[in-house]
């Protein structure tokens, strides 16, 4: 006896197939079986369990290709169980967990441990990145083939850049041979050294050390050059600067295999908005200027920036209470990314509905080579998010995440995930 479920009356938005219309969705055994108008009226389906989605968008589950789940090593801040529960609340059904755990996920056995842990604890799909260099020290490459065999979905030293251009070139070449994408955290440490916020008037006023936008762009440009040299794919994490967006736009125009992501905090907030020395507004790269923020939105609108990702980075209250310059970098985002994106991009008409959904689903799935995700095509995994686009709400602590370090706390947002399904099973419902 097969398990079937019918989602009825919602507006299906599936950018991968160009569908944007009222449709019913039939799920069978955890897969999308059919997407069509009037399925609920078919006599053969009249007894199937039904979810009414009238007034909601029915979209592929969000793919967040940039999160930190803190396991192993910092389970006090987040775990696979709590991080994926937070994701479910935010409409996210697949995440890519970065390798800057403690210890670093730079070897096959730790990957195997993490995948087993995720199989037991995770509410949604969890993919894992393997580190590019041992211990993320930027000195010796990890064993890419063995990492891939152990299930690494991508390679990244995220949290730290690979400063050594020669080493990064070899990483790109080896990753290309294996068909893995390398995700780079672009930051020239000699330019950003010791900074806690963006370099600019706000930092000058507060007496804080700022990192210039060029700290990112210098390495974005380096990576673009190395992509051109090697022919390897590179994905640029959390772009924050206007000049970086311009560089990626130019690279894409030249046909180079570069992709990029932006985080909601970077396209919703800017450095002059930071209240005092509140470290819940501290992340790396830092919030930039209003014009950088505008450029990110333009980049998202024209497709220069392919994907929206959160860089969900939980830190406990004690760590964040150390103040702006001593607190660790990072903000949580899984529970607010959809809402913040709807508020800033869709409701303000910077992106169409279809474009927005693509940035949240199809694009990151494509970058990670996930064939059965990011779409509601028949046969795809039944990871589905029902979006209530118009309800205004205010995120406040406590969150589903173990941590509460977010600048979106107390900020009015419009739209949210009404229900999240993973493989046809509801993992979150309002």
């Amino acid at each position, binding site marked *: 006896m097969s398990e079937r479920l019918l989602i009825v009356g919602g507006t299906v938005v599936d950018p991968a197939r160009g569908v944007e219309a009222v449709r019913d969705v039939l799920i069978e055994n955890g897969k999308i079986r059919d997407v069509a108008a009037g399925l609920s009226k078919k006599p053969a389906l009249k007894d199937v369990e039904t979810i009414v989605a009238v007034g909601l968008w029915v979209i592929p589950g969000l793919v967040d290709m940039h999160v930190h789940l803190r396991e192993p090593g910092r389970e006090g801040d987040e775990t696979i169980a709590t991080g994926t529960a937070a994701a479910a609340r935010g409409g996210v059904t697949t995440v890519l967990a970065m390798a800057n755990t403690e210890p670093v996920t730079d070897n096959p056995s730790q990957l195997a441990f993490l995948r087993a842990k995720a199989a037991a604890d995770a509410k949604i799909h969890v993919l894992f990145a393997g580190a590019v260099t041992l211990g993320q020290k930027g000195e010796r490459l990890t064993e890419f083939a063995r990492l891939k065999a152990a299930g690494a979905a991508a390679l990244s030293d995220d949290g730290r850049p690979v400063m050594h251009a020669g080493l990064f070139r070899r990483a790109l070449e080896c990753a290309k041979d294996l068909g893995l994408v390398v995700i780079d955290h672009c930051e020239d440490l000699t330019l950003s050294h010791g900074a806690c916020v963006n*370099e*600019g*008037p706000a930092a*000058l*006023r*507060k*007496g*804080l*050390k700022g990192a210039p936008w060029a700290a990112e762009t210098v390495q974005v440009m380096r990576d673009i050059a190395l992509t051109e040299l090697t022919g390897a794919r590179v994905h640029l994490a959390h772009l924050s600067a206007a000049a970086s967006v311009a560089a990626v736009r130019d690279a894409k125009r030249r046909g180079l295999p570069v992709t990029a992501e932006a985080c909601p905090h970077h396209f919703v907030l800017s450095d002059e908005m930071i209240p*005092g*020395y*509140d470290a819940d507004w501290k992340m790396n790269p830092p919030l930039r200027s209003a014009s950088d923020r505008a450029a990110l939105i333009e980049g998202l609108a024209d497709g220069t920036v392919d994907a929206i990702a959160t860089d969900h980075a939980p830190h406990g209250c004690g760590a964040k*209470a150390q*103040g*702006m*310059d*001593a607190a660790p970098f990072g903000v949580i985002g899984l529970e607010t990314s959809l809402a913040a994106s709807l508020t800033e991009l869709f409701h303000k008409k910077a992106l169409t509905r279809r474009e927005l959904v693509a940035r949240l689903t199809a694009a990151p799935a494509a970058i990670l080579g996930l064939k059965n995700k990011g779409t509601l095509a028949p046969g795809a995994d039944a990871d589905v998010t029902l979006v209530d686009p118009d309800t205004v709400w205010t995120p406040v602590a406590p969150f589903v995440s173990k941590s509460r370090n977010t600048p979106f706390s107390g900020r009015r947002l419009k739209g949210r995930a009404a229900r999240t399904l993973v493989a046809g099973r509801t993992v979150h419902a309002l």
Partner: protein
Amino acid sequence: MTKDWGRKDLLGLEGLSAAEIEALLDEAASFKKSPPDRPLAGRTVAFLFSEASTRTRSSFEEAALRLGAQPLSFSAAGSSLAKGETMLDTMLNLQAIGVTHFVVRHERSGVLESLAPKVAACVVNAGDGWHEHPTQALLDLLTLRERWGSFQGKRVVILGDIRHSRVARSNLFALKTLGAKVTFCGPTPLVPDAFTSLGAQVEHDVERALKGADAVNVLRLQLERMEQGFTASLADYALAYQLTAERAALMKPDAPILHPGPMNRGVEISSDAADGPRSLILAQVANGVFARMAVLAACDRARSVHV
């Protein structure tokens, strides 16, 4: 006398009104004229200094004593702070012991912003990172006001390492509020042009900056700035930016020279400038005690209202 002051804390001069700043200066001037009769008797002033200080700390201690308060010495090294206690816990404990005033110096900018509202005692910033050093600026202002009477239309050059200077920021915020103009001068790495966004004029040529100015406040060049690549050498910096008597003569006649100390003679300032007739450097130090007395006393009255 200080009806315009109603704050229990002094964390910075940014955001204070002209009336508030003048109220503190008036009180300082009155203390200078006639010593008060132990208005802070029974109060205890604790010093939380996580950075070295000679001048500021002695000046605050002397101010506390002249007001009749008891100074409580506290060294961060060897204290519970060094044992991992949070700053807030340290302050709450000292407050429970009877501390009524905290005078805090800390290497991190803005560290007091979240702490001050959580304690009943007065919190006075004695320098936080690169952010503010309000009592230093107040004593600079007191010294200039004694000379000028009013700040309207005056132009003050602040010369040196502005980027890393809490003294420069506090002076800028207050001088602007009081109607003066401020020119920041130094090499671009130490005086980025973006300072214009804070309302300062930025000038990288020392002679152009000084020409026609009403005063110059010279900041110390810390030696570690060379290792950090902000300047190639002390000699190179001195050649381009040292305040000499000859350069000082480009200012208006009798325009004074200030320096918050400690001085590196022969680096940012020459001895003929530091010791010459324009120099008010020791007058500043003397005024520091009165400025700090005014702050401790004014904040205490506001605290008494809140308690």
